C-alpha cells in the first residue's frame, strides 16, 4: 500500500469514505515517520498518541473525519500543554479549547500534537524557540522559516497531514514558502482568534498550512466563521470554498507591483515568480502592472505596531496566574521583574523594550499613532490597486531558506525578510503562498497571491489552476 503520510487530506478522506483506509492506519504511518525523522527535523514540541480504536470511531460525517492535524503551540488545546515555545509559559495547560480547536473536533479531525515556533511567534526562522530550532526538511542546515516553522516543516516532511499556523507579519506564508508547502493567511476577522495567545491583536490571524490548495480550502472552510468570543471576527457568510477550486483563470486580472521586484530580491526567486506569472498569463489571465507606492514603509510601520501591541499583550505574563514564577523575590514588583527576566528569551525582551518605548509617554504620537496613519496609506494603495486588478502576485520571501544562525545577531536583517508578507497584515488582506519553483540548491521558492478582503475564493481559484498545471507541489524533500 502507498505511504499514507504523504497523501493529502482530501485524498485520505476519499479513501476513508470508501472504507479502504482507517484513521488508525494513517496515524500509525505518521507516528512511524515522526519516530524516524523528527529527531532530525524537530518540528514537534509535543506529540499526542491518540487511541487507535477511538480514532476509528470518529464521526464519519465530519468534513475532516479521521484526518490528523498538528497545531502551532500558541493555540490553546484544553488540558494539553500550550507554551508559545517560551519558558514563561512552561507547563501551562489551558482550561479551554480555542474556537478553531472546537471546530476541528466537531468535524472529526484528530489532534496529533503541537508544533515548534519562534517564542511568542517573534521571528522568521524558528530559532527563538525555547526548545531550539526546527530544521528545514529540504536542507537540515537551514531554517524552516517562522514563526510557524514547526507546522510548515511537519507538513513538508510528511510528519502530519494538515497543520494550523498563525500569521502576524508572514508567519504562515514565509515558512510555507521556505518549506515548499501551501500556507494561507485569511482576511483579518475571517477566523476566530479566541484561544490564540495574542501577539499583535490588530494583525494576528490563524490559518492553514497544507500539502496542496484543495486541502487549504477544505481546512479554511472548517475554521472560518464569526465567533461571539472574538469581537474582531467579522459576521459575513463563509462560502463553500470547494466551489472555488476551478481550473480557469481566463479573464482574471493579476496585478504585479513594481515595488516588490527590487534590490534585495534574489535572482532565482525573481525568475521563479516571473515564470509563475507567465504560466498564469498563458492560461488566460491578464497581467497588469500596478504600483503600491508605500511598500517601502511597511516594515517600519510593522515594527512599531507589532512590538507595541506585543508589549501590551505580554504584560499579562507576570508569574501570578500561570506559567513560570521566579523562586525568590523581595516583594511584588521584584517578583514581576525576576519572573519576566528569567522567563522571556532575547527576542521577546527586544520586542517588549521596543514596543514599550514606542508607547511610552511623549513617544506615542511620534511612533504608534504615526505608524497607524501610514498603515492607512498602505491600505489605500491596495484599495486603489484592486480597482485595476482582481489579485496581486508577488514573491513570498526575498530569498530561499537561509542558514541556521545566519541572521540571529542582526535583528534588522531578520526583520527585513518579512518585507513582502507584512503589507497583507497591515491591510488585513487574505494572502496565500504556494510553491512555484526551486533554487539551484533544490530549495523551495514560493509565490504570494493577495486578494481583496474576504475574497479568499479568487485566491483559491488562481492557486488551484496554477497547481493543476504545474508539478512543484508534488516535489518532496529527500529525508
Amino acid at each position: 500500500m502507498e505511504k499514507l503520510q504523504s497523501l493529502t487530506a482530501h485524498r485520505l478522506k476519499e479513501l476513508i469514505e470508501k472504507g479502504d483506509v482507517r484513521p488508525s492506519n494513517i496515524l500509525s504511518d505518521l507516528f512511524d515517520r515522526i519516530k524516524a525523522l523528527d529527531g532530525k527535523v524537530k518540528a514537534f514540541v509535543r506529540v499526542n498518541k491518540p487511541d487507535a480504536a477511538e480514532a476509528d470511531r470518529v464521526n464519519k460525517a465530519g468534513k475532516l473525519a479521521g484526518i490528523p492535524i498538528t497545531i502551532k503551540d500558541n493555540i490553546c488545546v484544553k488540558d494539553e500543554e500550550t507554551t508559545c515555545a517560551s519558558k514563561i509559559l512552561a507547563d501551562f495547560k489551558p482550561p479551554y479549547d480555542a474556537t478553531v480547536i472546537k471546530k476541528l473536533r466537531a468535524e472529526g479531525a484528530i489532534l496529533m500534537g503541537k508544533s515548534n515556533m519562534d517564542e511568542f511567534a517573534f521571528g522568521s526562522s524558528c530559532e527563538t524557540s525555547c526548545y531550539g530550532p526546527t530544521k528545514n526538511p529540504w536542507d537540515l542546515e537551514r531554517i524552516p522559516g517562522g514563526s510557524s516553522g514547526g507546522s510548515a516543516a511537519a507538513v513538508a516532511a510528511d510528519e502530519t497531514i494538515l497543520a494550523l499556523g498563525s500569521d502576524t507579519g508572514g508567519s504562515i506564508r514565509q515558512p510555507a514558502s521556505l518549506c515548499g508547502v501551501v500556507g494561507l493567511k485569511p482576511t483579518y476577522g475571517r477566523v476566530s482568534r479566541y484561544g490564540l495567545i495574542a501577539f499583535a491583536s490588530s494583525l494576528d490571524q490563524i490559518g492553514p498550512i497544507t500539502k496542496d490548495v484543495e486541502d487549504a480550502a477544505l481546512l479554511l472552510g472548517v475554521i472560518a466563521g464569526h465567533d461571539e468570543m472574538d469581537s474582531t471576527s467579522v459576521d459575513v457568510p463563509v462560502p463553500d470554498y470547494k466551489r472555488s477550486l476551478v481550473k480557469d483563470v481566463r479573464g482574471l486580472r493579476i496585478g504585479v507591483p513594481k515595488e516588490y521586484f527590487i534590490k534585495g530580491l534574489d535572482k532565482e526567486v525573481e525568475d521563479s515568480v516571473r515564470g509563475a506569472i507567465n504560466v498564469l498569463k498563458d492560461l488566460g489571465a491578464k497581467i497588469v502592472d500596478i504600483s503600491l507606492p508605500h511598500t517601502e514603509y511597511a516594515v517600519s510601520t510593522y515594527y512599531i505596531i507589532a512590538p507595541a501591541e506585543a508589549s501590551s499583550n505580554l504584560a499579562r505574563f507576570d508569574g501570578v496566574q500561570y506559567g513560570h514564577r521566579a523562586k525568590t523575590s523581595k516583594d511584588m514588583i521584584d517578583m514581576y521583574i525576576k519572573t519576566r527576566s528569567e522567563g522571556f528569551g532575547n527576542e521577546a525582551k527586544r520586542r517588549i523594550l521596543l514596543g514599550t518605548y514606542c508607547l511610552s509617554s511623549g513617544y506615542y504620537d511620534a511612533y504608534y499613532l504615526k505608524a497607524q496613519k501610514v498603515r492607512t496609506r498602505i491600505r489605500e494603495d491596495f484599495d486603489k490597486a484592486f480597482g485595476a486588478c482582481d489579485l496581486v502576485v508577488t514573491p513570498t520571501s526575498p530569498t530561499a531558506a537561509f542558514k541556521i544562525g545566519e541572521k540571529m545577531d542582526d535583528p534588522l536583517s531578520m526583520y527585513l525578510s518579512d518585507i513582502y508578507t507584512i503589507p497583507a497584515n497591515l491591510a488585513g488582506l487574505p494572502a496565500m503562498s504556494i510553491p512555484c519553483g526551486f533554487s539551484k540548491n533544490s530549495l523551495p521558492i514560493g509565490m504570494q497571491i493577495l486578494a481583496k478582503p474576504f475574497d479568499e475564493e479568487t485566491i483559491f481559484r488562481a492557486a488551484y489552476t496554477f497547481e493543476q498545471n504545474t508539478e512543484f507541489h508534488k516535489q518532496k524533500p529527500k529525508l
Partner: protein
Amino acid sequence: MSKTIDKTTVKHVAHLSRLELNDKELETYSGQLAAILSYIDKLNEIDTKDVAPTSHAIASLKNVFRKDVLKPSIGAKESLKNAPATEGDFFKVPQIIEGK
C-alpha cells in the same frame, strides 16, 4: 522622533517593562534598538497630517455589543489550576502592603 536611544533610556524602558538587564544586555539592546529606530525613522518622509489612523484593517466593522446575560464560567478551581501559588480560592503573591 529621536534617532538614537541611549543606555539610560533603555534602562528606563526596561523598568517600565518590568525587565532587568545586565550591563552586557544593556549594551547589546541599546545598539540594536538604535539601529531599528533609525530604520523606522523613514516614516517621517511621509506627510500624514490629514490621514486617519487605522486600528482595525477591515473598516466596515462597527462597535460590537452583546446582551448582558449571565453565562456559566469555568469557576475558581479550574481558574487556579495553572497558578504557581494559591491559597483557598485565591492566587497567592508576595506581600504587597507593609506590616506584619
